[in-house]
């Protein structure tokens, strides 16, 4: 929507043409709403559950146990010298964050259509809420990692300081892809189903539950073109100090993430104008 708000609150409503502006100032103006929606999301999610917010910890732990038994104990996959449970948890952590962020962002517009159809606010708030609630879950599962590291007596490495960088990278990728898919999902509900399959495949194309050294040499370059590979490896490197340090691959991932995020944001703003008419 092409809206100019001047000193005296003059709003011009008309059909917008051409490239939209991102309207980030408008989003800032509505930060209270962002806060309350996030709060509603988190608080509403765990009401009337015996475990409540504990699920934030139980879910990643359960996955870790499944993969540890299956791949660590039975298949005896190599794990770069740390206990396999820790190795895979350090990969599952960012993977779950990325996958949840993407999935929730992609579903966000359709899920919130009741509000979108009745009130105006910068629509970017909706996917931002999804991302922020994913971050809250991530921070909770980071606590579990700390406990696991204590349990296995693995000391954190100095590389820990690089964690925010990879977290931001994963956020950008998740949000960027999510923004694209959220708009597509409004037009074609097939998107959400397709995304489920795609994420399932991507999980195994990314070194989440195995080390990338398992991939034959001649496929390595291709394998590292997946921008998630350096993200997951980077997390593991930052958290445990093991595995290859991301090099050019991280730079490549940053480039991809920027492209996806910026194009996604503009596409979102473009679709936002008439989103109510097609929901």
């Amino acid at each position, binding site marked *: 929507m092409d809206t100019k708000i001047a000193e005296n609150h*003059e*709003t011009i409503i008309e*059909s917008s043409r051409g490239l939209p502006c991102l309207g980030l100032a408008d989003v800032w103006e509505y930060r209270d*709403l962002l806060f309350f*929606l996030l709060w*509603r999301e988190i608080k509403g999610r765990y009401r009337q559950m015996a475990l409540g917010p504990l699920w934030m910890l139980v879910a990643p732990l359960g996955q870790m146990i499944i993969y540890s038994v299956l791949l660590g104990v039975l298949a005896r996959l190599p794990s770069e010298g740390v206990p396999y449970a820790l190795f895979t948890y350090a990969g599952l952590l960012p993977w779950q964050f990325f996958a949840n962020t993407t999935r929730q962002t992609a579903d966000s517009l359709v899920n919130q259509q*009741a*509000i979108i159809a009745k009130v*105006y606010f910068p629509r970017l708030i909706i996917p931002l809420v999804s991302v922020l609630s994913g971050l809250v879950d991530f921070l909770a599962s980071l606590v579990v990692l700390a406990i696991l590291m204590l349990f296995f007596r693995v000391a954190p490495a100095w590389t820990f300081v690089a964690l925010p960088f990879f977290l931001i990278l994963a956020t950008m990728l998740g949000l960027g892809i999510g923004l694209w898919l959220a708009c597509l999902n409004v037009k074609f509900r097939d998107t959400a189903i397709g995304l489920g399959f795609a994420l399932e495949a991507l999980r195994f194309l990314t070194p989440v539950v195995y080390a990338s050294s398992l991939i034959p040499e001649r496929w390595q370059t291709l394998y590292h073109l997946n921008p998630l590979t350096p993200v997951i490896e980077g997390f593991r490197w930052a958290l445990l100090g093991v595995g290859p340090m991301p090099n050019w691959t991280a730079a490549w991932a940053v480039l991809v993430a920027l492209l996806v995020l910026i194009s996604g944001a503009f596409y979102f703003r473009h679709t936002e*104008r008439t989103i109510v008419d097609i929901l």
Partner: protein
Amino acid sequence: MDTPVIRVEKLSKMYRIGAKEQQPQTRAGAFKRAAISPIAYLRSTLRPPREEEIFWALQDISFEVKHGEVVGIIGRNGAGKSTLLKILSRITEPTSGRAVINGRVGSLLEVGTGFHPELTGRENIFLNGAIMGMKRNEIQRKFDEIVDFSGVEKFIDTPVKRYSSGMYVRLAFAVAAHLEPDILIIDEVLAVGDTEFQKKCLGKMGDVAKKGRTVLFVSHNMAAIENLCRRAVVLDKGLIRFTGTQIAAISEYQRIFSANQASLKDRTDRKGSGEVRVVGIELRDAEGHTIDSVVCGQDFDIVFHFEASAGFRSNRVVASFIVKTQWDVPVFLHHNRMSGTEFGELPSQGAFVCRIHKTPLTPSPYRIGYSIIIGNDYLDSISDAAELNIIAGDFFKSGEVPPSSHGFCLVQGSWSMES
């Protein structure tokens, strides 16, 4: 101040509606269609719309609203009222034309938007307030006032899913009533809650207007339009038919409405001799105003305007009508022998009027069919002649409004305990 705060210039909005699909005749045809349907769906959404898929909800609408005015917008269902409000509240964009608005807009197209059933009343006040554009400290400041207005203090820390529907609506409206924008845009939201609460809401709206705020108000409730507005705009099929004082607008609306009814005159799917013909069906409230929707619990008249042919003489005419659901299930039938009324000799033009007391139907659209009979012979009959739209209202005086999924009729009952 005479400066317009809302200036609407040649505003139009086009919607794309699905074109009719052809039903396949053979099994092979049906199979083929299922196979190509993904491609057909993609093609139909991606190509520009064809002529017959286009629907103009608004066409070249222009009007101005001055500072401090309370303007009503009236029109039948589908006249474009909601589309206009949606554009002015920036929920969707116009296709062409523009609107210039001076001031902060608060729009109330629904009460309780974004209420989360699992959260408490207190939490929902903050959430709903923020959704409607209030700042956190603004809500904090008005919190006690809102709770007071809603009358649900006792349950303020209970999840709203445990609320009765009446309490839910009160709380939702209480938040809405404390919005203080420069321009307030209100859709039909006053048809909820009990009568007492409705009065409170109307009073609050009157206060808003007195404080010099500008209000745009859509309603089917002509009494509310007449009392609250000074000016009104009549919309019909996406066009502005009239702009002027609210009194003149209401009569213009009623004129257009009865003109729409005139199409009944041209109906050919009639049974009977035609010596008496119903030429129009009108719904009126107890004060005699034409209405297009009836609120549950309301008294109203169904008026069958008729014409009798010149030589027609009889005093044994029976007028009967049936109210059916959208799925053609009969709900009730009424005729004048039931109330022991005889019409006597019919005038050449007149109307059979049936008063329905305390409308006992749940909110839903219904169909009206009628028959004019003499002895065993039909004079005139149309099985699906008009629509009867029932909207939520306080039948039980308790704020509870059962949906039509719980049954179509409302029955007055009383409960007690025996042990």
